[in-house]
């Protein structure tokens, strides 16, 4: 089944961003009719590679080859012309346009002297494609009325709408249910039969083993190894991915839990989550696991006062509190490190020290007058404590690497002396060193008596760090497990099927 000559290959690709080398001399081969799995942790450079291959980013050096011919992809247009298409992790589509148009945007079907757009044909083809992937959608619907899973279907249909020869699936199953995932496999198999070269990016080993023919591993923007999937097993892949074995990296410390700090009862929202209750003790790390889009972030935002429609009761140290804005949450000692670090977490265009000082300007600067000196002193303590790497704290946050940006955000919140720290995907997209530092720091904080809520989509991370895990599925709390009950199977199955399986 394997063919010897690659259909599409990359050699020596480099791409860097301010502060990070996202891709460092990487290579990749794709073969027709085969699925190659690209494996790597978050921040390994997978998404950058996808963008480079689809002409969104231009590599600084290196070469792309299609059927042995060198290829320059100066724009997304060019990539499409050569039959290279990607289904991105976050579906980037047009909310206000119809499904048909989302499928055909950029390569509309036209006819006649005036190149009039041929809507009837496009609608018909769109409907056909949707049917061929068993997507129960009308091509006339506007995209904004679709769920995340349905949007993914549209993205796949879009990829199928032109004669793609190289198809890249960037974590396509992250937000899909079990059933939808099976349907996706069927589509991938069809593509294989049609002779497409497929690059499949996933975190889930069961998926990789069931669908991929080959694998390539990246770590920290570097190429590590590649080969045929049948010749390796899971532990070997993990070792390549992380450079060491999984068990060692989580510096979990066991802390004697104190009194109850936070109690949440019947937290509900009209469309996002329903009837969620939990409590959090001093010194505890509570993990929230679930698929992307399971409502975890929305729930945390509710706790932080961002989500206005949330109902339910929240008590801090036994006192019922009303939290209607982040300012109130901060005053109550609840702080939130958001998943969207660049949009929500930090103000990239401000210096480090001003970011750290922002939530408590009025405490640092008396009478409303800025004291850059006092603010800088305060920031200095916390930036040092998190070992933020920067020439000085005047550096703008945007010039830091992802990991250091995250440290600044955490430093900002620690400076407010909180009771509960909510971390939403705290290690997403940061380098391995910063990741370890964040984990170590979490342990240290709980030792000091802080309580942590950690939202994560990385199973090893939640299993490694949490004292308890709440699994969410489609906005519901489907299971709650104590540390001694953790098994990967139980957690994953609850998260993907919404069912609790008996231990």
């Amino acid at each position, binding site marked *: 089944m394997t063919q010897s000559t690659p259909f599409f290959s990359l050699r020596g690709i480099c791409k860097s961003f301010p502060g990070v080398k996202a891709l460092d001399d990487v290579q990749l081969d794709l073969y027709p009719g085969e699925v190659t799995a690209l494996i790597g942790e978050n921040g390994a450079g997978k998404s950058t590679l996808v963008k480079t291959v689809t002409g969104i980013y231009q590599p600084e050096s290196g070469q792309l080859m299609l059927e042995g011919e060198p290829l320059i992809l100066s724009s997304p247009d060019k990539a499409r012309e050569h039959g290279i298409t990607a289904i991105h992790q976050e579906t980037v589509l047009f909310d206000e346009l119809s499904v048909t148009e989302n499928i055909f945007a950029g390569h509309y079907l036209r006819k006649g002297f005036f190149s009039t757009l041929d809507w009837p044909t496009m609608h018909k083809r769109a409907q056909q494609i949707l049917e061929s992937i068993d997507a129960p959608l009308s091509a006339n619907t506007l995209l904004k009325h679709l769920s995340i899973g349905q949007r993914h279907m549209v993205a796949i249909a879009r990829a199928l709408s032109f004669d793609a020869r190289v198809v890249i699936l960037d974590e396509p199953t992250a937000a899909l249910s079990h059933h939808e995932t099976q349907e996706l496999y069927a589509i991938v198999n069809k593509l294989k039969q049609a002779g497409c070269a497929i690059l499949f990016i996933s975190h889930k080993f069961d998926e990789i083993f069931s669908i991929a023919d080959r694998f390539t591993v990246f770590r920290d923007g570097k190429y590590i190894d590649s080969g045929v999937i049948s010749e390796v097993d899971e532990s070997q892949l993990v070792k390549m991915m992380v450079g060491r074995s999984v068990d060692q990296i989580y510096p979990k410390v066991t802390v004697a839990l104190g009194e109850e700090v936070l109690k949440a009862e019947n937290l509900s929202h009209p469309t996002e989550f329903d009837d969620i209750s939990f409590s959090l003790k001093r010194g505890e790390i509570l993990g929230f696991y679930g698929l992307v889009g399971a409502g975890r972030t929305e729930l945390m935002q509710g706790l932080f006062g961002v989500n206005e429609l949330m109902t339910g009761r929240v008590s801090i140290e036994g006192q019922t509190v009303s939290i209607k*804005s982040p300012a109130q949450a901060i005053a109550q000692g609840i702080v939130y490190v958001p998943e969207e670090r660049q949009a*929500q977490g930090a103000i990239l265009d401000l210096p480090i020290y001003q970011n750290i000082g922002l939530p408590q*300007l*009025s405490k640092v600067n008396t009478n*409303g007058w800025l004291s*850059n000196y006092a603010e800088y002193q305060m920031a200095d303590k916390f930036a*040092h404590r998190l070992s933020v790497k920067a020439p000085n704290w005047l550096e703008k946050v945007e010039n830091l690497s992802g990991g250091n940006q995250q440290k600044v955000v955490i430093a900002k919140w620690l400076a407010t002396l909180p009771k509960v720290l909510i971390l939403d995907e705290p290690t997403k997209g940061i380098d391995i060193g910063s990741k370890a530092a964040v984990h170590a720091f979490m342990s240290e904080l709980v030792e000091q008596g802080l309580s942590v809520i950690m939202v994560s989509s990385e199973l090893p991370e939640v299993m490694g760090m949490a004292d308890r895990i709440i699994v969410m599925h489609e906005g519901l709390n489907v299971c709650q497990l104590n540390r001694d009950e953790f098994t990967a199977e139980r957690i994953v199955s609850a998260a993907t099927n919404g069912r609790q399986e008996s231990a």
Partner: protein
Amino acid sequence: MDNSRTIPNTAQDPDNTLNNSTGSAVSKLPSTSIKQRLMSWEFFLLLITAAVCVANSFASPYFLDPWNLSDATFNFVEKAIVALPLALLIICREIDLSVASIIALASVAMGYAAQWGADNTTLLIIGISVGICCGLFNGLLVTHFAIPSIVITIGTMSLFRGLSYILLGDQVLKDYPAGFDYFGQGYVYWVFSVEFTLFLALAVVFYLLLHHTNFGRRTYAIGKNPTGAFYSGINVKRHRLLLFILVGAFAGLAAVLLTSRLGSTRPTIALGWELSIITMVVLGGVNIMGGSGSIHGVFIAVFLMGFVTFGLGLLNVPGIVMSIIVGAMLIAVIACPVLLARYLQRPR
């Protein structure tokens, strides 16, 4: 990780435990270098303004005359006084196109009050209060309904001006009490008129407000990233509402000055001023998309525009031709840094 062991775990943790944490090296706040200051937008503007002054004094023998310069300031200080708070609002990613209409409405209100016998202090209070009410109206619509301010204020621009037309029609109000002309025509000392002195004082106040207070810092933070600022516990809506009110209040103040200078009120008062006020702000280096800009930049831009138009006026150049020059200056001055950056980026 560094070597510190003390960790803040509750809000009650006294600040002094933290002092131990850093132990040795306390970094000092580095200061801005002279080179950075020379490369700044404000310095660039200052150079242009100086050049304009030199050119003007060569072109007309009447330019460098203290009384003439003092007279010239009357043409722009009222606008400049509104430009100060508007700069803050624009830095905060909002805009108010209705300022000129607020001036008109406030002036009409003052005119009627004067007719009913209000004294000067009352008139001052009425002018500013009407401005505050209009600003509040704009601000509430923008923040409560989350509507882009450009659309709302296009609407209220017609609405406020329209209200002045309804109230006043083809009438004129000119029964202002004795001494009311002091605001717009009086002099504090030598050539320094009340208006101009007030502007200088307000410029200092706004400089301190934007660059040296928490309020100013929050303004920048919101302008650079409203979501991030909100997640940092800043009450973004309230802050913007306050700025709208501030702009309204100063439009009201400008109405007092202008009405006093003209000695009469018509509904067409200050027609079309919003664009020249915004031009001042943008020329001063305030990014129309929010997040950056400075009061000293706006301060210099006010004089740049004032001197350019006054210099041309001395040569009897029609106002409309001046507007070409101001328009071109606006685009050129904004385009310059872009082109320069592009030139510098080119591979050497």
